[in-house]
């Protein structure tokens, strides 16, 4: 198996991979390249996570008649770097009578599951580490592992607030997982493939999927954004860490870098949900109306990131405008409204495809 196909075939990466293959046996070289790719992705997403935090703080400030961070670096650009540095250098405190093993394991569960999902994202036509034929399925599977970390954190902390937060997280994620899965399934029905690159290719000619499937697509998108926001435990579904009810929820007892893992995972999860939405509904890295399709040097990743940031801004808008739902209202919304709507929507989509009404 030749791993060079999986990485960015720009000249520099080609040179590096050729060089590694030239100095090592083939197996060793493959593994080395895999590690390099993993490290590159880790670095990329540490930075992405930090700048999403900065973006959130700036967006919050705009909503709230404030300026936001503006002291560290120009326009506050180094603020979150400084925060991360502070968190790394802080002492890791914990309370007595915690379950040490699970307590230490929990943050890694959350952050690793968030990072693993990144592997399949098609940032551009070539920039995709791992283009598997069950990409969508892989994403759903991976993104639901994170909740185990949250449950472990709440259980092992020996804190009642943390436990309540973790239990809320469990019921919330399990419920909304259904809506996320079903709304994705609606779109998969339209494309007929689970491979992310093929889903994007299907949108090159027929237009974005949100237009191709008209009404059912739009319903699916709305359900996906609601359920996705709930999946990431963000307002108005932030019951897990409802600070006016539970202090800090499941991560009450975490400090330093372990807290930072939970914090970064939230932002990376937001990136994941937005990315899935962009791939499934807004044509991934395809430019709108193909305006830059013939410009060879134009980076496709630009369109991908612009669309993702647009959706992230939408989620931040939710967060800084809406009050929080109550725990029973959260479940009512899912089981009584979103789930039946979703099931009907799938049937509707099937009828649309059967009658060939797609654009």
């Amino acid at each position: 198996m030749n791993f060079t196909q999986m990485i960015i075939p720009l000249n520099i990466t080609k040179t590096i991979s050729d060089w590694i293959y030239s100095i090592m046996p083939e197996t060793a070289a493959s593994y080395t390249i895999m590690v390099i790719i993993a490290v590159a992705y880790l670095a990329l997403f540490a930075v992405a996570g930090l700048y999403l935090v900065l973006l959130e703080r700036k967006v919050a400030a705009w909503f709230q008649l404030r300026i936001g961070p503006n002291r560290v670096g120009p326009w506050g650009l180094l603020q979150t770097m400084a925060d991360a540095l502070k968190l790394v250098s802080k002492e890791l405190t914990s309370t007595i009578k915690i379950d040490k093993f699970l307590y230490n394991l929990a943050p890694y569960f959350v952050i690793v599951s968030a990072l693993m999902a990144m592997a399949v994202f098609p940032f551009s036509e070539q920039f995709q580490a791992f283009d598997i034929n069950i990409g969508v399925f892989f994403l759903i599977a991976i993104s639901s592992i994170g909740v185990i970390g949250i449950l472990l954190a709440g259980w092992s902390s020996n804190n009642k607030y943390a436990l309540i937060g973790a239990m809320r997280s469990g019921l919330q994620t399990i419920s909304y997982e259904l809506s996320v899965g079903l709304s994705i399934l609606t779109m998969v029905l339209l494309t007929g493939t689970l491979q992310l690159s093929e889903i994007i290719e299907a949108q090159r000619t027929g237009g974005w999927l949100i237009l191709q499937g008209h009404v059912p697509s739009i319903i699916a998108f709305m359900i996906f954004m609601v359920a996705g926001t709930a999946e990431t435990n963000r307002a108005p579904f932030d019951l897990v860490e409802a600070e006016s009810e539970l202090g800090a929820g499941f991560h009450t007892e975490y400090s330093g870098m372990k807290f930072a893992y939970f914090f970064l995972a939230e932002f990376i999860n937001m990136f994941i949900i937005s990315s899935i939405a962009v791939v499934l509904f807004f044509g991934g890295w395809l430019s709108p109306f193909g305006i830059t399709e013939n410009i060879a040097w134009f980076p496709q990743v630009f369109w991908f990131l612009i669309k993702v940031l647009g959706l992230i801004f939408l989620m931040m808008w939710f967060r800084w405008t809406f009050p929080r739902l109550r725990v029973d209202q959260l479940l009512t919304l899912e089981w009584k409204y979103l789930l039946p709507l979703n099931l009907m929507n799938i049937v509707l989509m099937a009828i649309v495809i059967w009658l060939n009404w797609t654009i």
Partner: protein
Amino acid sequence: MIDQQAQNKIKTEEYFINMGPQHPAAHGVLRLILTIDGEIIKNVEPDLGYIHRSIEKMCERDSYQQIVHLTDRMDYLSSHINNEAVCLTVEKGLEIEVSDRVKVIRTIIDELTRIASHCLWWGVMGMDLGALTTYFYAFRDREMINDIFEETCGARLTMNYNVPGGLMFDIHPNFVKRTKDFITHFKTKIPEYDRLLTGNVIFQKRTKGVGILTREDAISFGVSGPTARGSGFSSDVRKHHPYSAYDRVNFNEILFTEGDTFARYQVRMMELWESVSIIEQLIDNIPEGETKAATKAVIKLPKGEFYQRVETARGELGVYINSTGNKNPYRVKFRSPGFSNLSVLNHISKDVLIGDLVATMASFDFVIPDIDR
């Protein structure tokens, strides 16, 4: 068969949880000992004493002028109204009639204080329900009121502007203009508050039908202020026992009969409009006159008991002074609105979720130093 079922049933157990004294929803150092079954609250037991400063006992030590300054520290959001309550009681005892100018200025500042207090409550109410932006909107407008206060009396929160017999000094020349500017500004902002929070579906779902306080309960627990008026209990001291200049202005007592959190919310939002209307009626015709009636340097109240009640932003504040004719009172008792309002919390918070308790508490608008003097 039944034994088998009982054995198979998972055993559940109620547990205690401390909400406070350091908790974001407690707005201070109120400790609520909650008995919880899962997330359902079975019992709420308020535990006071974390900010007890024995203000009533200190009053017995101090002269009447000094007592006024202690009352700032009770309900710090209605500090001017608290000061006024003591001053009115002492003036009643001394049988001083303050000038019309003093009465009107006191009333205007009372209403500005009420707006400032309700602004803070509105911001915090949103924050307790998870809408963080409300806080900053409310503080933008509250800041303007604080600036007006600062210009007139030098302090922004604990004002000490009242003294027995009148005001410490006259209003600042800019006071009238800045107050008018504020009123013009604020009238455009209340609809903005409504757009941001009142009309929100989630907010209405969180507050409607939550924490229902019936009129009978409100009366028997001694609940007062906007909390009681949300249950349809007409209890506005400004209307029923007018003091200062309240007898010469037209305003409505806002009454809602639902008794839920949303009704209490609406009462306060409508009171903002009423306060604005009261200020508008008075600001253009502040009469000329003395700002301070002549009092002796050492005030000695005649022997007897004196009581005066006022309407603070949270409800009815009663000041009881028992004098033996000395320069110090023999006994001072404050009937604070927060304490009586807190007493009903357990009654209306049984078998609700934690989120509902937070919403109910937010709508009661507790100021902890007022509960725990």
